């Protein structure tokens, strides 16, 4: 607390007063008061009327004096002033202005003619080891559009920054080549446009519409799978653009060959240019992303906060962004950047829920997952189809819920703790080499959350 700041000092006094008097008293007497000024060690408290002044002097003077003396001995005395009505009102308004900080709307502004979101630029794009190849490819494509890498195919898991990268290419392209036409769309929009055009009998106009762009960016092409007519239309569009050396950029959540139910000829064409993947961001990159995101909102976070944020969220950058946004919001409301304790407090909702779940629940879920009778888990049977689930249960109970070996043993039909240790070690070993088992356990975990 800054004892020179009357507002902070008053807030501190209020928290102390609140502890010593009844809520009814507190609300009646302290809600409309504030510190007017601090002068030569005398604190001037502004109160609404004579009633308050008399009562403060009679009832609260010693209490308040004790509280401020605890803060600092430099406060000699407290005086009470009856303040003008306007003055009190004006102060309230000033406070409201702080609370009413709005998110700037232009973040969500999207350009109608090219469908690009101006928020996504290379300036806000964090480059790390996980995406520098993709970034280099994007730069090369921008250098000589339509020639170097055509099409450019970027793939990676959700929330890795694919959309950011391809939109940034679009925005940069607009800047570098004014006059040329860019268009960004998702494959889903392409499908809808096409079906609409077919319905309206204007399929020819549809073809023309997309063929006059100099740079076409299509997001999430994996959604084209099983939509044969749209695929064929994209195939023709692709050929038309490719032949005239117009740059095409695709994004997807998997490599072209791995997209299921998509025509072979389109698959080949998607992979014909440059396919590049964006991996999982390493911790350093995640820290850089968190810092950059916060800085773009004008909030400087301390190193430990950044580290905490980056380490608690694994995977999606989108979730990381959400976390940073929540911190930024807190900072804007309170007026100061939060420290690590507050961050931990406020981000509890983002971190995985506290795992306290009954053993029975885990057994139920796993038994249901493997399609066996849950009773058999507790029995002494050594049938293979029961043994594996039982071991998986032990492994999950140990790894995810940190239950002791003996407890797991007793809960699962009175087994020895060494049996449990053996099972856990076995699964731990196998999970590294056996991809199917790893996937199974991953799926079970999602069931348990």
């Amino acid at each position, binding site marked *: 607390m800054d004892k020179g700041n009357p507002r902070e000092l008053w807030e501190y006094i209020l928290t102390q007063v609140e502890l010593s008097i009844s809520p*009814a*008293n507190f609300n*009646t007497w302290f809600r409309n008061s504030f510190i007017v000024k601090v002068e030569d060690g005398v604190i001037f408290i502004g109160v609404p*009327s*004579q*009633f308050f002044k*008399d009562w403060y002097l009679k009832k609260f003077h010693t209490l308040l004096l004790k509280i401020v003396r605890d803060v600092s001995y430099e406060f000699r005395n407290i005086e009470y002033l009856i303040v*003008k*009505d306007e003055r009190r009102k004006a102060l309230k308004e000033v406070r409201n202005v702080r609370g009413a900080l709005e998110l700037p709307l232009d973040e969500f502004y999207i350009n109608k003619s090219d469908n690009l979101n101006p928020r996504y630029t290379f300036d806000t794009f964090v480059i790390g080891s996980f995406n520098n190849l993709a970034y280099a490819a994007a730069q090369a494509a921008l250098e000589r559009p339509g020639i170097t890498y055509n099409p450019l195919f970027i793939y990676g898991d959700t929330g890795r920054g694919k959309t950011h990268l391809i939109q940034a290419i679009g925005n940069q392209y607009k800047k570098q080549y004014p006059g040329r036409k860019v268009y960004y769309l998702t494959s889903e929009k392409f499908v809808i446009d096409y079906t609409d055009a077919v319905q309206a009998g204007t399929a020819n106009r549809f073809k023309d519409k997309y063929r006059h762009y100099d740079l076409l960016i299509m997001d999430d092409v994996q959604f084209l799978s099983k939509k044969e007519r749209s695929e064929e239309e994209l195939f023709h569009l692709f050929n038309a653009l490719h032949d005239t050396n117009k740059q095409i950029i695709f994004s997807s959540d998997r490599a072209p060959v791995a997209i299921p139910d998509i025509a072979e000829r389109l698959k080949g064409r998607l992979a014909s240019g440059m396919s590049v993947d964006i991996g999982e961001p390493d911790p350093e990159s995640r820290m850089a992303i968190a810092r950059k995101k916060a800085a773009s909102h004008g909030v400087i976070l301390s190193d430990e906060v950044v580290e905490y944020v980056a380490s608690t969220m694994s995977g999606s950058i989108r979730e990381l962004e959400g976390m940073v946004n929540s911190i930024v919001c807190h900072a804007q409301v309170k007026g100061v950047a939060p420290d690590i304790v507050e961050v931990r407090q406020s981000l509890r909702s983002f971190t995985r829920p506290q795992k306290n779940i009954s053993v029975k629940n885990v057994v139920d879920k796993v038994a249901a997952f493997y399609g066996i009778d849950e009773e058999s888990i507790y029995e002494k049977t050594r049938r293979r189809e029961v043994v594996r689930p039982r071991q998986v249960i032990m492994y999950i109970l140990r790894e995810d819920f940190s239950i002791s070996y003996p407890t797991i043993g007793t809960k699962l039909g009175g087994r020895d703790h060494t049996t449990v240790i053996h099972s856990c070690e076995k699964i731990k070993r196998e999970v590294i080499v056996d991809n199917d088992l790893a996937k199974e356990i991953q799926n079970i975990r999602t069931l348990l959350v």
Partner: protein
Amino acid sequence: MNISIEKKEFSDAVYKVSRFAERKNTTLPVLSSILIIAGHDGIKMRATNLEIGIDLKLEGKYISDGVVAIPAAVLQQIAGTLTQEGNITIEHTGDTVSLMSGTGKSLIKTVPYDDFPTIPFPENPKNRVVLPGVLLKNLFTSIAPCASSSMVRPELSSIYMSIEGGVLTAVATDSFRLAEKKIPLSNKGTQGKFLIPAKNALEIAQALPDDDIIMSFDEHQCAFVASQGMFVSRLTNAVYPDYRQIIPKESIVEAVVLRKDFETALKRTTIFSDAFQKVKISFNPKKNNFSFFAKNFDIGESSETLSANISGSPLDLSFNHRYLLAALSLTTTESISLLAAGIGRPLIIKGVGDTSLLYLVSPMNQ
């Protein structure tokens, strides 16, 4: 505590005092209670909502002294049902109080009175005037409705009281109309001015006795002290607009009409006023009459002409009829005079022979 009060005295006092208690079910329960004090200087009732406060003396017998706080709403309901003659006995034991009146006996839970605030008295007792309570009562009740009911501008929801040269001037305005009333004072020395919230003034007017009271005030607080008790109110701490500027100095036409004619004609015309409550008045010096006109597309239209003494040039003006009618409750004279200064300028209404009142109302756009 053990006291005995005559029933009528008790119900009157409860009726007066409970108006000063907090009516909203807010924070501090003691604020919505009446404090009854019995001591060597008699029996007293107190209540305050931190805006206004009352300290009322009661006639009655006291057997033993003590202090007790009872919810005002409960006392008010009991007081409303007391009919027969006789006394009511109030006895306090533990955390209950028993009320005995003739046949009945009620036990009421009390409220802890430690938190009952002191009722503050103005710090500087130099600013004081003595005047009959009945005058002040009439002044407040007649003029307070002209103040603004919105709290956006605290000065406009207050009555401006100014004492100068032995005259007390009270002004209230809501920026559409303005009422100014003057009362002569017996002692001429005091000077000063203050702003009392109109809401508070109305509450105090209900409780004021008719005989002489002492009105004293300082920057933040005013008090009205009578032999029966003391009434205090918070003052509005703001600057009152210089209302004298807007009063037209000259007039182009004046009409003198009988108050009774004016009232009935106006009331009949308002039936036909539109959603804006517009009534048009016309001064016709040639025919020596004065007319009202109102038109409503749904109902129809109506005009009323009354004979009047007109001097000046012809003029038409439109007003909100409520503001015209409000002028009549401010004066009791048989005829009233209306002075207009031209199109778009305010109309002044005065009672003929009554110099104490000045009522100003702004016209509506034609």
